């Protein structure tokens, strides 16, 4: 499995597009939300930058997760998976190695985003352990979500389709949530979904942990979602993997 991780990391480092998706795009989104939208959106009681940056952290990690699905689809298409399957490699090693590599990538992107966030005015408002916990929740959620992407990549088997298919859940979760604007500004039919969907819950947890505030409730919910996603989509991914190579 470590061999697969090493391979995947080397590949990510050598693919400029992946690095750009991982670093440049979130940076652009950060700038967009902070400066372009920031003036227009009023959040009672806090500055917009403090409101939106935790969400951008999460978004950076999730977007990077899309590379999981693209890479898996590429691997299936290229025939390298056949080589893996004819080797005495554990069946789970391919997927586990893939997500471990993405975890490493996620931590790195997060580090970059924290730097950028601080540069545009975000300020942490809590104790160090709380901040670490907050970043931890981001990474854990990103990990759980990468299994969703793994299942997508394996199911679509084609890099371009995987990319398109991956954007959809991301956008729905990102925008129909409390990440960018308060849910109270949304129409009533959307509020229920927006308030309770996994991304919103996680964003609330991260905000509370990074800036101080009651976090426990959201943290548990977020971790439950992450565990649930991992369980369900890991199982799906393994199932699709087995079927797709027979």
């Amino acid at each position: 499995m470590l061999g697969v991780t090493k391979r995947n990391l080397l590949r990510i480092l050598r693919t400029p597009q992946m690095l750009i998706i991982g670093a440049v795009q979130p940076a652009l989104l950060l700038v967009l939300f902070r400066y372009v939208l920031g003036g227009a959106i009023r959040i009672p009681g806090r500055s917009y930058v403090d409101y939106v940056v935790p969400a951008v952290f999460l978004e950076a990690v999730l977007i990077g997760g899309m590379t999981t699905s693209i890479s898996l689809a590429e691997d299936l298409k290229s025939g390298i998976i056949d080589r893996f399957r004819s080797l005495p490699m554990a069946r789970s090693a391919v997927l586990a190695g893939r997500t471990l590599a993405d975890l490493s990538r996620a931590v790195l992107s997060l580090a970059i985003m924290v730097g950028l966030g601080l540069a545009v005015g975000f300020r942490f408002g809590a104790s160090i352990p709380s901040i670490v916990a907050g970043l931890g929740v981001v990474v854990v959620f990103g990990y759980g979500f990468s299994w969703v992407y793994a299942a997508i990549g394996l199911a679509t088997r084609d890099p371009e389709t995987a990319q398109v298919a991956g954007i959809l859940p991301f956008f729905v979760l990102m925008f129909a949530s409390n990440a960018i604007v308060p849910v109270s500004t949304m129409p009533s039919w959307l509020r229920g979904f927006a308030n309770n969907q996994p991304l919103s819950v996680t964003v609330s947890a991260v905000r509370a942990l990074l800036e101080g505030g009651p976090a426990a409730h959201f943290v548990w919910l977020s971790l439950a979602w992450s565990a649930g996603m991992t369980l369900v989509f890991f199982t799906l991914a393994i199932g699709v993997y087995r079927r797709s190579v027979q």
Partner: protein
Amino acid sequence: MIEVEGVTKTFGVTVALDDVDLVAESGKVLALLGPNGAGKTTLVRVLSTLLLPDRGSARVAGFDVVREARSIRGAIGLAGQYAAVDELLTGRENLELVGLWYHLDRATYVRRAHETLERFGLSGAGDRMVRTYSGGMRRRLDIAASLIASPPVLFLDEPTTGLDPKTRNDVWRFVEELVESGTTVLLTTQYMEEAERLAHRIVVIDTGKVIAEGTARELKDRLGGDVLEARVRERADLDRAAKVLSALGNSEPDIDAEEQTVAVPVTGGTADLIEAGRRLEAEKILLDDLGIRRPSLDDVFLALTGARTGEEGPGATS
């Protein structure tokens, strides 16, 4: 070393393998000869545990392909037409990783990677990304990767398709060395020249069925004798020449419009040659060449299946 019994594999309505039996002896080369779509790659995939057979059984290196697949994977090397090497890694990285995945320890896989890079003439390019390699170099790397762990059984799926003659020869010499050191090789090919050169035994396969089996000599003998071949000077004479010769031969004449030749298996030897010369002259057919030769595998294949084997390799003898 490899035993296949009654293996059948169907994809939807297509029967890719139909009750295939074959045996590959330890330390020898078995060639699976057949045209595109014959089922060669499907059989290799079954034997390398990438596919499960629908019916029948198979054993590789003493292990059952269905129940002991994991053990088989540690004992085989696989190199395919579509060289499955990682483009974004260097040659060396590719080889070392494969060694790691065969559970070799670090010192061993580093050394083996180095050795096989040298053996295949890739030392210079070893630290460049595979993306920069030519097709021939990729194929060589693919074969090198299949050998990193020195497996007792090697599956080579059309290993020289699309390679230039020099690289092809290198691969052939290389397979011969491997066999000398005791490796069992199952080779699939469309080139009768390759099967003839490398294989101890040949299994001829078409549309999923084994249609003949034996040494190159045995298969040629099945034709019952020699091949009488005439090259006509005028293309328009081809059909008439074919009629003349088929009266002498014991099966359908093989007409090659491009080469302007007609070939037919005969049993009468030189007597048939002289008679053919007489009759063609009587018909006023001008000839550039007329002769008797031993049959090539291509002729054997034609007689067995009614069709030529795929592309002919460079220097093909038919």
